[in-house]
């Protein structure tokens, strides 16, 4: 019985550190005056968080009443901590370059760093929460922090984007809460009153006994609710604007991490549903949402003139593919989708790093105004080429492998479903290639060289390189440990 467990993890357990570090540093950074120093303090704290997350791998703590760690969320915690770290690094170098975000007043910068940490904190809480309510609160809080960061520039566009983001996600989150309550209602007769009926560790084993009809209703609400945050079409509207108008490092974490966290929440509920055999199969709904996201984003990509929006839509596309794969189900598809979550997080954030530097250098986000980067800025341009080709699923990168496995599983299990998937991928690929060629090739539109000292630019390029190397390694030689780990999770997902 979970009531006997302590509410919080023991102070000496790494989990406590993983959660406490961002919270504390958020508080500290909120008061830190000097912007430059704050940026690097930010980096240090994220490094510490990442180390703590790694420690979790070694010594996974026992579940507490509100928090727990299993292989699934551990995977995402490590990923989140890592990308958080590299993004903090990038943002430090990015701010040091001056340019676009220089118009930020010092207090805004302070606010920015504090919010960055707070954002990390909320995501980590959402991932490790053992309580559906806590998880919900955390996701909501993540929304609020990012809303503030999106509106950071105070431009009308930013305000509008944040407004859209806030309204849509609050409503979505409200629906998600209703779903959560329904799950409680389904569980309460079996698990009795109180926190039991909301604790994952208690819910999962007893899921079979729950009232299936309630679970059906619950899943619909959760799907629409958390699906909004995942950015599934047609609930995706907030995503491109939020990505486009906020500071680029934030776009990177939004795409790379927040979407994963929301997806994690969704998947937890799916696990519950599949654990209870009697419900309607959740698969078809997921497949449907996945395909609609894939195609909507695929077509949208052709009409994008704003480079950050372009890649925001590509995030929608990838989320669609992942959700599709989970909908197909089966160990192979789940494995592939889990792998793809990580690959997409790493690659997409790398893409946004590149895009950030490019927009900063070019002073514009309009694709039409940026041409021939490989000529004017070889390192940046070729970096973009590699990153985009990677996200487009070209070998020998990890994205290729995960997409290969997903398609393979789809073809093997439901060939007729695989055809639209393949077509959708082709569609999106065409658009990305079109934009990539006009960005990277052709007569250059920018003067060589850019703002900020060269060294800083290299420093800013390093995280991208790191991500791409990791993706490459995953593609060429996926570590056996990781594979085994993912297989385990895939089994859990059923």
């Amino acid at each position: 019985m979970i009531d006997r467990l302590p509410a919080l993890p023991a102070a000496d357990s790494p989990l406590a550190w993983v959660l406490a570090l961002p919270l504390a540093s958020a508080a500290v950074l909120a008061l830190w005056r000097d912007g430059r120093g704050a940026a690097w303090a930010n980096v240090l704290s994220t490094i510490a968080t990442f180390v703590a997350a790694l420690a979790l791998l070694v010594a996974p703590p026992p579940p507490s009443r509100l928090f727990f760690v299993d292989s699934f969320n551990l995977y995402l915690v490590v990923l989140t901590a890592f990308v958080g770290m590299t993004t903090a690094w990038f943002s430090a170098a990015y701010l040091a370059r001056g340019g676009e975000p220089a118009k930020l007043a010092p207090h805004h910068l302070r606010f920015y760093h504090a919010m960055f940490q707070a954002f990390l904190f909320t995501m980590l809480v959402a991932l490790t929460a053992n309580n559906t309510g806590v998880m919900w609160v955390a996701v909501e809080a993540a929304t609020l922090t990012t809303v503030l960061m999106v509106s950071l520039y105070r431009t009308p566009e930013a305000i509008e984007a944040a407004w859209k983001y806030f309204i849509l996600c609050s409503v979505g989150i409200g629906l998600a809460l209703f779903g959560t309550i329904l799950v409680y209602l389904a569980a309460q007769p079996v698990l009795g009153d109180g926190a039991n009926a909301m604790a994952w560790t208690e819910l999962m084993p007893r899921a079979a006994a729950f009232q299936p009809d309630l679970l059906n209703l619950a899943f619909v609400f959760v799907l629409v609710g958390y699906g909004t945050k995942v950015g599934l079409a047609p609930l995706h509207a907030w995503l491109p604007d939020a990505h486009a108008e906020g500071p680029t490092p934030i776009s990177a974490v939004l795409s790379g991490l927040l979407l994963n966290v929301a997806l994690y929440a969704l998947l937890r509920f799916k696990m519950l549903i599949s654990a209870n055999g009697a419900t309607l199969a959740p698969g078809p709904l997921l497949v449907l949402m996945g395909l609609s996201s894939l195609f909507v984003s695929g077509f949208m990509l052709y009409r994008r003139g704003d480079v950050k929006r372009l890649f925001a839509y590509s995030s929608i596309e990838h989320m669609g593919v992942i959700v599709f794969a989970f909908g197909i189900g089966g160990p192979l598809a789940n494995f592939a989708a889990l792998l793809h979550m990580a690959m997409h997080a790493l690659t997409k954030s790398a893409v946004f790093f590149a895009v950030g530097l490019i927009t900063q250098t070019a002073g514009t986000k309009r694709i039409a105004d940026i041409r021939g980067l490989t000529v004017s800025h070889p390192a940046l341009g070729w970096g973009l080429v590699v990153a985009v080709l990677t996200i487009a699923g070209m070998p020998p990168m990890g994205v290729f492998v995960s997409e290969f496995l997903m398609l393979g599983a789809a073809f093997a299990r439901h060939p007729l479903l695989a055809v639209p998937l393949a077509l959708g991928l082709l569609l999106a690929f065409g658009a990305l290639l079109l934009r990539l060629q006009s960005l990277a090739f052709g007569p250059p539109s920018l003067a060589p060289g850019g703002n900020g000292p060269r060294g800083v630019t290299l420093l800013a390029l390093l995280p991208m390189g790191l991500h791409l190397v990791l993706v490459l390694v995953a593609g060429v030689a996926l570590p056996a440990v990781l594979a085994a780990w993912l297989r385990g999770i895939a089994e859990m997902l059923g």
Partner: protein
Amino acid sequence: MLIALALAVLPVLAVLGLAAGRFEGTHRLVALGCAVVSLVLLVAGAGHLLGGGPPPAMVLPFGLPGLGFHVRLDSLSALFMVVVDLPAAAAAFYTIGYASHLPERRRVTPFLPLFLFGMNAVLLADDAITFLMAWEFMSLASWLMVVSDHRLEENRAAGQVYLMMALFGTLCLLGAFAVLAGPAGAWDFATMRAAASGAAVAAVAPLALLGAGSKAGLAPLHVWLPLAHPAAPSPVSALMSGVMTKVALYALVRLLFDLVGRVPWEWGAVLMVIGSLSAVLGVMHALIQDDLKRLLAYSTVENIGIVAIGLGLALAFKDGGEPALAALALVGALYHIVNHATFKTLLFLAAGAVQAATGERRLSGLGGLLKRMPWTGTAALIGSLAIASLPPLNGFVSEWLILQALFKGPSLPPWAMKFGVPVVAAMLALSAALAAACFVRAYGIAFLGRPRSLAAAQAGQHPTPATMRWSMAALAFLCLLLGAIPVTVTDVLSAVVVPLAGGPFQVSADLGWPWLSPVGATRGSYSGTVLVLVGLALFAIVVVVAHAFGAPRARRAEAWDCGCPEGLLLPETQYTPQSFSQPQRRVFGSTLFAAVETIEMPEPGARPPARLSVRLIDPVWDGLYRPLFRAVAAIADRVNRLQSFTVRGYLLLMFATLVLMLLVVAWRQRS
């Protein structure tokens, strides 16, 4: 082991190429390295091909845990390694001299080794993931070289179309492999071979045709070839056209003959039809092109079509329980693959030399090059005669074999074959004859007569670099050799096809060495060797006798041209490419190629010649692809409205989704 080592060198070369920067020497070095590596691979492949022995296989500890990268070198792979690396070596060697002519050196040299790496890896792959990874990698590397001269809009467009078609092909192949692998995801070929069931074939065959066909350039998926091949620098176009298409055919053979046990004859028939269509369509378009490299690309479509005919026939025979004839058809197809790899590479290299010397790719700007570039001219002559399938060169032997197989086609029970095969044979014959016309035109206009432009007139002032000359000479010699000793080649090939065709077969069965007598001496026989010897003897006699009459030596004078006045015999009075192919355009009409002719007549009595200009569009492009793009654009416009809803609109969407799902649940709970 040797192979692995050689392959491992290639990425290093790529890095070197990246580092090369402005130093021309380094670029040359990389090219040389590529040449050496290809030679090594060539030797290794040939060694296994001739030496035989069990196929060496191993699993590299990379890729997905539990799967790894399976590699295996069986006789088929070995054969294709020869097919790939022989032209590759020539092209790379050629590049050493060509490096100074490369428009964007730094965007080519790094990717050339990677391209070679990809192609060889495809041949060695023994599981689906490795295969497709290498396959896509190959496309990627070649794409980078297609867009290497990236400032030209048309090249970027070509790159766009090319890579999209490549991905399309990959997706289709992926589907084929996935169906073979089954839900369990047994990706390695050995398991697939064992598990291949009749049910799966129904899905595999079409997917394989689409996948490999799009890469090989079978109609109507050929549109990217004439765009991409001219865009790339000549040595690369040579590799793409002469070699990469062969890799695609390898995929087809591997899937349909090896992995899938037995394909129903209908698919063979389909392949034959597609092949004959590609052959005729390809050559007809080649016949009317003005751009030399585009012409060559279209002729690739034709030759791939010929090979496809052979493969399809082999499938049909195999299913019809005639392994011997299947082997014959397959040998013919493989022979043609080898031949096309040699002469198409040769011709592209020659085109590169011409472009380097004159800066011209349009036939209408060339002429009289044989006098100015004797090496290139002679090599190109041999290549043209070979691709026009004239004896005693290699092109003829393979077409002869395929024709012989076709002539036995009606012996198959299905009536569709009885009536269809003659038609296919007619198409094949037609395409062969048209190919002759096409290359008479191409060669005659580019290399013979008098120069049609100043650049052409001044060609040959800078002699072609030795490396370029030698690589062309080597390929030309191969064209002769492969034609002169056909039996030796067919014996090697028939060893390769035994496991694929499902039966042993000696192509030169009963007459012995120099006589090629496939279905038995009574059936029909051919001997390139004898023809060469007797022909040379007669030629010698003729020459001797003709001069023995003691007539004076030939004297040079201005051409007569039915009494054209002195000095008025301008080069413009010669036939232009357009006027040469005008009869064919008239005859085969605007249906096959929407040709729009415009004639600009000078004033009566004015000096300038009348000009006939022709605009050509591939109807497949207009009929199939353009509408597709339009549709995508239209839908994109519609969908794009989603971007400009109000918040209320988005909420409405959310609300609708929710209510819809709830309705679904309600409905499902009822039922």
